[in-house]
């Protein structure tokens, strides 16, 4: 059996990569992809814990996470499309009409 800590470390690393991606990328869609990496990373932990305690909660949870991810993606991409209609770019650094 693979120890739980392995899963946790993998999950943490992927999560961090996701965070890093959010921080360094300017393309809205890629940033969003990085958020998906984070969600996925969490799923590993969730199921890892399930494995450890022999429960089903984690799997249900990750199931819900997928639902949420799907919902978010549909809305998020809709937002991007709406945005793109007004201003044909997805570069986040060009969106600072509102600041200070």
């Amino acid at each position, binding site marked *: *059996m693979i120890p739980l800590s392995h899963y946790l470390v993998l999950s943490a690393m992927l999560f961090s990569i996701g965070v890093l991606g959010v921080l360094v990328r300017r393309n809205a869609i890629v940033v969003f992809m990085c958020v998906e990496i984070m969600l996925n990373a969490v799923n590993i932990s969730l*199921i*890892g814990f399930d494995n*450890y305690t022999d429960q089903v909660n984690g799997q249900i949870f990750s199931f819900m996470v997928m639902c949420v991810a799907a919902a978010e993606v549909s809305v998020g991409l809709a937002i991007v499309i709406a945005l793109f209609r007004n201003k044909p770019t997805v570069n986040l650094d060009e969106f600072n009409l509102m600041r200070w």
Partner: protein
Amino acid sequence: MELLIFYPIAFVSIVAALLVVFNKSPIGSAVSLIGMMLCLAGIFVMQKAHFIAILQVLIYAGAIMVLFMFVIMLLNLKGDDTAAWAARDKNKLLSVLTGVLVVGVLYKIVDIATRTELNSPAPLTDNFGTVAEVGKALFTDYVLPFEVASILLLVAMVGALVLAKSKVD
């Protein structure tokens, strides 16, 4: 034995994730993301969460990523991230800081994870992670979340419609 499978998959998933972050073209990122998700499906299988592994492939790698690709294609996004990527240099301090931060987070999380004494999972019941088991839970104990999720999806659907429909009013 299992570790021999685990390590390569984990390694590939990490590489794929890094590729998502560092790939210049959005399409490349998306493709890497699909790769990563497939790897994760493998991990899930190793965790005996078969149902989730299937969903991972179907929903994530399938539906969600297709949507991503579709939008990227639709908006014809390519390359314009390159200039932006170069512009990163303008803000070197910020990049360094970001890197340090993320490494810090990573270190912390890893530190915590390894310090936990959870090294060996409990012996699992046979039907752990099967569709039947998860489905049963979903329709008994977790029927409420399941129903709530439907509202969530409904809302998302309506929302996507409202935002993306082309008619400008």
